[in-house]
């Protein structure tokens, strides 16, 4: 079955440093979504990537989908304390069903 790994599991950065989380799949993905979960909160949808090699930006966040559609990444430029939380990738696994990755927990030190 489909296996999705996210690395790193944890990341502590100083405010202003960049951060990247990677999502790797053992199979080719049709599309992938990214979510953010603040401490004590629930996951919130950020973006969906569909095309091979796709790159999308949201302010300081850059999302990429690999050329082979087996991996994806989220990069945050110049982190802020508001970026704290856990970032999940969620590839589609079956029609309209998304399986969440293990998540990367980000802590930003002021």
């Amino acid at each position, binding site marked *: 079955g489909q296996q999705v790994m996210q690395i790193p599991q944890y990341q502590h950065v100083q405010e202003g440093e960049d951060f990247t989380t990677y999502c790797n799949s053992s199979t080719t993905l049709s599309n992938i979504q990214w*979510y953010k979960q603040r401490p004590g909160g*629930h*996951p919130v*949808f950020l973006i*969906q990537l569909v095309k091979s090699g796709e790159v999308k930006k949201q302010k300081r966040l850059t999302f990429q989908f690999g050329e082979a559609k087996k991996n994806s990444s989220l990069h945050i430029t110049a982190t802020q304390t508001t970026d704290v939380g856990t970032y999940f990738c969620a590839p589609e696994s*079956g029609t309209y069903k998304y399986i*969440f990755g*293990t998540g990367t927990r980000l802590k930003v030190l002021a």
Partner: protein
Amino acid sequence: GAGVSQSPSNKVTEKGKDVELRCDPISGHTALYWYRQSLGQGLEFLIYFQGNSAPDKSGLPSDRFSAERTGGSVSTLTIQRTQQEDSAVYLCASSARGGLGYGYTFGSGTRLTVV
């Protein structure tokens, strides 16, 4: 409603008792999902309803777990004979078009503690 509503927000139950968790999705959303999140862990898929189709129950961990969705709207997740390992936050999500392009909208969850 404006968002996905879950009740209760917290539930403490004794081992062996049955519990029912409720989810009220966003009006008009045809897809409804249940996930489970243990402390500090990722989201575990449980079950998925899409319109009038048969639900995808492939994530239910045992036959003690069941869910229904009445009238294509409200859903109830039932856990029978609860065990301590069932303690987790149960998250419900709904989406339009199966989440394609729009993602899921999650509720705030029900924190279940089995003592």
